[in-house]
């Protein structure tokens, strides 16, 4: 590292300090209570990490790696359509056999690089989708966390079917390497008035199996996100299935009355439905934007 300011000895001292053991590590150990512990009730942020030299103690470095590994594995896990179909049938014994389709993204690497392909239905898929006058089709897509839809999808599907007795609900569609917009083409092909896409959200460090639901009225290919409503953070420590179902049913009934989904529906939602209902209209996908926040997750 030539040309850097002359502080090389500083670096060596840092290393020496690290090697000599750390007061900080001892003070945060079990023998003396961690003064940050009670502050963790107010935030899940990784505050008060153990310090050694200029960096973190081994325990905290490895804890972070463990969380990241879980998130990475969740992204790259494959959705097993047979297992998911069996789980759906198990949760909803009267439901017709789930249909399985793929997007045009042939594998995970393509899926991650080419969101456009994940939004389009594979050519051969149209043949397996029966066209009738359905009120609603539910699509279960792997998205960025196949485990999320495996874990939360069957129960929510079952709850929604039970909560909408008068509705003509299409057989569930399992979409592999799918993004939200793949539901538009599925619903268009099947002739469904509504599509609800149940999809794995991008895993975070602490939650790897969070599911989102995107609802669209009269979907067609190219529907803008501003015409969708979304529920997010459906997982064991987030929005529970009965609550998510109630919100989705509220949205469906309101949307049927208003003949629309999206921003117009969101604006009515706050007094009647809690804050996890939002329009899917994304602003800008940088850190200035709330789009990846729990309120408006995005899979694409």
């Amino acid at each position: 590292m030539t040309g850097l300011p002359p502080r090389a000895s500083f670096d060596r001292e840092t290393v020496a300090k690290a090697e000599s053991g750390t007061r900080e590590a001892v003070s945060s150990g079990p023998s003396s209570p961690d003064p940050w512990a009670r502050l963790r009730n107010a935030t899940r942020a990784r505050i008060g990490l153990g310090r050694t030299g200029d960096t973190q103690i081994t325990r905290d470095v490895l804890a972070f790696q463990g969380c990241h590994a879980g998130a990475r594995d969740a992204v790259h896990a494959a959705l097993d359509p047979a297992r998911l179909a069996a789980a759906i049938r198990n949760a909803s014994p009267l439901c017709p056999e789930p249909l399985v389709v793929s997007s045009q993204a042939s594998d995970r690497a393509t899926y991650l690089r080419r969101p456009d392909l994940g939004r389009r239905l594979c050519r051969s898929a149209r043949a397996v989708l029966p066209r009738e006058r359905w009120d609603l089709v539910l699509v279960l897509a792997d998205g960025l966390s196949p485990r999320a839809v495996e874990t939360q999808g069957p129960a929510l599907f079952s709850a929604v079917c039970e909560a909408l007795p008068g509705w003509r609900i299409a057989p569930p569609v399992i979409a592999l390497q799918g993004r939200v917009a793949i539901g538009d083409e599925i619903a268009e092909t099947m002739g469904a008035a509504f599509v609800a896409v149940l999809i794995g959200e991008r895993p975070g460090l602490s939650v790897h199996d969070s599911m989102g639901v995107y609802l669209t009225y009269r979907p067609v290919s190219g529907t803008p996100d501003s015409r969708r409503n979304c529920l997010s953070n459906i997982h064991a420590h987030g929005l529970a299935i009965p609550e998510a179902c109630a919100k989705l049913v509220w949205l469906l009934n309101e949307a049927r009355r208003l003949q629309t989904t999206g921003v117009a529906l969101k604006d009515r939602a706050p007094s009647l439905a809690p804050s996890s209902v939002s329009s899917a209209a994304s602003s800008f996908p940088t850190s200035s934007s709330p789009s990846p926040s729990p309120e408006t997750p995005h899979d694409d």
Partner: protein
Amino acid sequence: MILAATLSGERFVFRDLRHLLAAASPLRSGDQLAGLAAVSQTERVAARIALADLPLQTFLEHQVIPYEADDVTRLILDTHDAGAFAPVGHMTVGAFRDWLLAHETDGVSLRAVAPGLTPEMVAAVSKIMRNQDLIAVSRKIEIVTRFRNTIGQHGVLASRLQPNHPTDDLKGIAISTLDGLLYGCGDAVIGINPASDSVENGLALLDMLETLRITYDIPTQSCVLTHVTNTIEIINRGGPVDLVFQSIAGTQKANEGFGVTLGILAEAHDAARALGRGTCGQNVMYFETGQGAALSADAHHGVDQQTVETRAYAVARAFDPLLVNTVVGFIGPEYLYDGKQILRAGLEDHFCAKLLGVPMGCDVCYTNHAEADQDDMDALMLLLGAAGVTFLIGVPGADDIMLNYQSLAFSDILTTRAILGLRPAPEFAQWLERMALYDPQTARMQAPALPDTPLSRMIGWDS
């Protein structure tokens, strides 16, 4: 204008400047997604050979996005300084690279030429520069900005303390702020991405940061990163606004996608300056940018993502910002696929901004669906430190629990400062010393136990 080169016995012809610039760009997924990437490595290098022979003057005569169609193009050409351009006006892109790297070309001459450079010239030369070239030229350039402290000097690495919380819980945010201050972070800004974008919420967050700042006499500035129109309203309602934040991009259409125009930015700039809250200077704007922003808004006009990103810096420099940062790995793997692409883009963004005269920092970061990890971030933060980056962003333990992505930990910024011998902003460094957080004898940050620092009262430690 014939744009062509022969390499390995094959002749490559490029349709226009956009095609040439895109083909010359180092490989990245966003250009592949847009269908703009070179079709082969050989074509890519042939494009660079053709680009190196192109006179810089060409970029004044041919626009990648038409003047009539785009207000960013108009801004670029209408503010071009022909006098400043003169010393390099006769050069090709290749000769310009050699001039940038020459010992005789010092920081003063680079600052002097900046008003004569357009983003397209700067993007073009970056495409024929290796990573080490981008670093070597960047570190010559000193862009000093001021509000309540002074940042950007040689030897100074400032930091944004980013204490986000998923429900904007004031105590949670204060705790994360304390955590960052104990590492010596927060001199660039204490900046919150709010979970809720309402004006009331923004006011509450700003009031809280203002109280902390005044109580502990912290020589820094605060910011709630809400939409510029919200900030204007907060100013109108008497809120304590130090910096106006906005995400910006390199085309009119992409900026419209953010709900901003150059006119709105000018209005906000005037409103914040009129408050006169800076004690060292009046740089009041804070912008974020990032490769992929224009494409994701379908507003790239067939221009490659690195060139269109560089055009955003022309927008930034029109408003004398205190801070600008690229959110390099945030926008996702469909734009920058892996650690190699993120690292390259971070160095490009920093170089291009600095060469245009913009005080560039970086959110060294990635998402969980990118092929990257903290080792990639270590490499980028240290290379940017060596390149003289204005500031880096730190969050508790590198884990942003609101935006759900990984940035740097506060300790990473401490490590970068220590390894490279960089210091916080001088006014902030003196404050750290007064707070007994910095020991001038050993030139090290102290790590006091929570009960032993008076700062812990900011979170009600003794109550």
